[in-house]
């Protein structure tokens, strides 16, 4: 992993068009500003982990339980 030291207000450029700014620093927090083209996907890593978990739960669905629950859904249609 590339490790760099930056001070408050300093910037980094990734791939020519992504600009990362260290806006503020705290004891255990850092506030980042990101300027990037709108098509660049930026997400928190925890979000990806949550989405992976959801897809795994989804793949573990028991079709028989779905049959049961669907009967309850019918009352709302």
């Amino acid at each position, binding site marked *: 992993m590339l490790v760099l030291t930056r001070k408050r207000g300093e910037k980094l450029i990734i791939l020519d068009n992504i600009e990362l700014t260290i806006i503020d620093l705290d004891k255990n927090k850092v506030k980042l500003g990101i300027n990037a083209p709108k098509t660049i996907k930026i997400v928190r890593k925890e*979000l990806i982990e949550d989405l*992976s978990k*959801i*897809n795994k*739960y989804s793949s573990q669905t028991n079709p028989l339980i779905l049959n049961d629950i*669907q009967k309850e859904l019918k009352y709302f249609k």
Partner: protein
Amino acid sequence: MILKTSKFGDVEFDEKKIIYFPLGIYGFEEEKKFVILNFGHENFSWLQSITNSDVSLLITQPFWFMPEYETILKNNLIQFKINPERYSVFISTYLKDRKIFASIGAPFLIDNENSIGMQVVVNDLNQNLTVNVLEKLKTNILKV
């Protein structure tokens, strides 16, 4: 063609219906080829991997229980210059304590013209990643 699936046994499927996910989907990054299977569950289908018989996600289209999702999606995907009519939208769904939860935070978009799919993250969604489908249905009925 015959497809082996863990949930449904051997299933007949049409090769032309294969959907290619170049980046895979969250949690199953290695799975690139899927088909959508229907087993008579109204509003629900299965996104079944071609290459891993164990991987089949319960999916649903979001609009029947959450009509406002159309606007959310439109506002969010405008940046990709996506024409909504060209895409089918599905979201992964799971059951917990006899409730159905739908993952509105990351829909699957499937390009109907070339059968290429991707799971995208809906940014600035000011709510949870998942919604309780039944609760959402009830709320929308009360609104009308």
